[in-house]
């Protein structure tokens, strides 16, 4: 679709004055940024996947050596899982609303719900860490606890980044309609769903291995 518009714009753009040209480019770059950012986020997702794959293989290697024990996962983790799954759902609704152009107010509500759920998840995770500390299980207590704190913390960190972006987007939505960055929003949706999937994977990993 864009190649035609692209060429037409570029052909006319030559004639346009400098200022007009820039605005012409806005449209051009608009479609471009739609396209490029979509592949960008997938590349990012791939990179994060690789890092956690590396941690996983490290875990398997470490499991082979001497002092591997067992770690009782705090129950609150399952609640957190539900929260994160729910947040994915609400964000999906928001995306749906937005693409159907039903005004951004409704969508913004769902975005707010999502980021609140995301925050709740982070709080819940820190709760899990506190529970473990209460049992006297710290980062360096045994390899299992090391891996648990490490993986959950890094994942929570990524979720926080997602929350930050959602805050920004919610602001944009509430502020005004025309400057909303749809491409960024779409990427955030991909990223957020990926965080949910990643967490489910991590939970299963911890259950089976730790």
């Amino acid at each position, binding site marked *: 679709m864009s190649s035609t518009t692209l*060429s037409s714009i570029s052909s006319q753009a030559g004639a346009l004055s400098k200022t007009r040209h820039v605005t012409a480019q*806005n449209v051009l770059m608009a479609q471009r940024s*739609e396209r490029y950012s979509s*592949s960008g986020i997938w590349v*990012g997702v791939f*990179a994060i996947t690789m890092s956690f794959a590396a941690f996983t293989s490290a875990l398997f*290697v470490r499991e082979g050596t*001497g002092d591997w024990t067992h770690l009782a996962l705090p129950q609150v983790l399952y609640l957190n899982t539900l929260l994160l799954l729910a947040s994915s759902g609400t964000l999906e609704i928001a995306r749906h609303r937005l693409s159907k152009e039903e005004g951004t107010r409704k969508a913004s509500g769902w975005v707010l719900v999502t980021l609140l759920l995301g925050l709740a998840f982070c709080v819940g995770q820190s709760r899990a860490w506190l529970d473990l500390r209460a049992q006297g299980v710290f980062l360096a207590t045994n*390899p299992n606890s*090391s891996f648990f704190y490490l993986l959950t913390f890094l994942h929570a960190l990524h979720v926080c980044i997602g929350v930050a972006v959602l805050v920004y987007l919610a602001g944009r939505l509430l502020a005004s309609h025309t400057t909303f960055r749809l491409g960024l929003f779409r990427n955030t949706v991909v990223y957020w769903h990926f965080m949910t999937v990643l967490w489910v994977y991590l939970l299963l990993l911890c259950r089976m291995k730790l």
Partner: protein
Amino acid sequence: MQEGSLEQAHVHAPPQGFIRKYIFSLDHKVIGKQYYALALVAVFTGMILSWLMRIHMVWPEAKLPFLEWFSKNGAPGGIITPEYYLSLLTMHGTLMVFFVLTNAPFAAFGNYFLPIQIGAEDMAFPRFNMMSFWTTFLAWVVLMLAFVIPDGPPIAGWTAYAPLSAVGRDAGPGMQWGASLWGLSIAIFCVGSLLGALNFIATTLDLRAKGMTLMRMPLSSWAWFITSCIALLAFAVLLPACILLILDRHAGTSFYIPAGLVISDRLQPHSGGSPLLWQHLFWFFGHPEVYIAILPSMGIVSHILVNSMRKPLLSARVVIYSMMSIGFLSYMVWGHHMFLSGMNPMSALAFSFPTLTITIPATVLTLMWLGSLYGAKIQINSASLFALGFISMFVSGGVSGFFLAQPSIDIYLHATYFVVGHFHMVMGVASLFGVFAGTYFWFPKMTGRMMNESLGKLHFWLTFVGTYCIFMPFHYLGLIGNVRRYQSFVDDFMAPYLGWHKFMTIAALITGASQFIFLFNLIYSRFKGKPAPENPWNATSLEWSIPSPPPWNNFGAKHPIVYHDPYQYGVKGSKGDFVMQDSPEQVVSASGD
């Protein structure tokens, strides 16, 4: 389309003010130059470190007063201590591998020319791009801090094998805070490189101008694209490795440190860790890193060779596929660094075969370059000299890989100077030749001024002959079993060969000094060089279709439309024996074939 109009425009207005223009600039060209400058600082630092090592090695009694002034503990009375030798060695390796060989051919030239060569106005994510440079810069600052802290730089080598690198103070001077700075620096560097790689991939996939199909991309762009794919994978693994290392050092975890280690009379409070884990993670990054260093130079050299041959390569496709398969294979061979580390001996064979297999695409590449030279009209200038020199270096460094790829031979040659000679030639010198060639070739475009040719040629001859004088003897000394990473040769049997070490040191001093000719040429030409035309080399790719230096938005008003493969040389074109990618004219092949 409707949604598209909701988009806030990505395009950036011409930057205003010094800060936005030259420091926190979003312009890929400025960022490219920043990477280049950083690499330049790093490479001269690393070179001087190597001088100090070489001098100390052959003249252990030599007193270097300025060094005592620089580090009182490192060189009491101006005499380098064993641990300071290792500090120099570690910093030399780290600076060269990360801040020179990764930055110069890939990040610097890639940032500057990838968008232009594919007809884009900028990188896909200009802000990420800026972040990636300043993250890398931060990594460099953190690493350099190791020189000034009282503890001194780490002594564990650039491979930082655990547990030596993981146990902290007891492992020796520099291992308390120096090593922590090292780990932190590399972790930060990983983040920067990941951002960069992400940007390169997204840009290549989505910002290509109309008509710029993947197969119409210049070989240099292809190389940067493949390299960014490798880098994305490699640094995504090194980052976790560094995080685990830092945790072992400061959080008391035991990922890499096994139980019952007694270091400096202290029983280490760790248990169950696996030193092999670090080696696996590190080399899973470490071997692809070799190709992160060399692939961009392959691309740059191909790009320049074609131009100076005035005829297309035998087959650009074959070159691209060879580079792809090298990139792919580079992930199946990391174990060949660990033949003697105590892996299951079976796995040694499993790793040896793909390693040997890499020689096939490498040979194909070499034959493509050689075969294309046949019947060409080679224009000799500084750029093409370095490009031809690259082929020679690549072969010389490559053949020694034959030996090291075989576990049985590794039993004898592992950790000898043979290995050092091998990777310095193929990974260090060869890819730097690519960088030199690229600099002489693209300098006019980047600055709008030509470099001084006669200085360039002088620089080539000194460097070309000099590097052979330095690194060929490495191989010979390796054959007689000269072990690497020794600050002096207490081994009785080394005595008759010290003459060769002196020769190498002198060669290193001369070759290193001749690099200052290059530095002078850079600075002089930047201000006093004669103005460069738009297309001084009669080249075909898009970067030569725009003014030198390019305007802030590269192509100004027009948006290039690509009609041809990148290398239409030896044809009857309106401008001469070439047709530019963006010129609509028909390609008429010249007489002959």
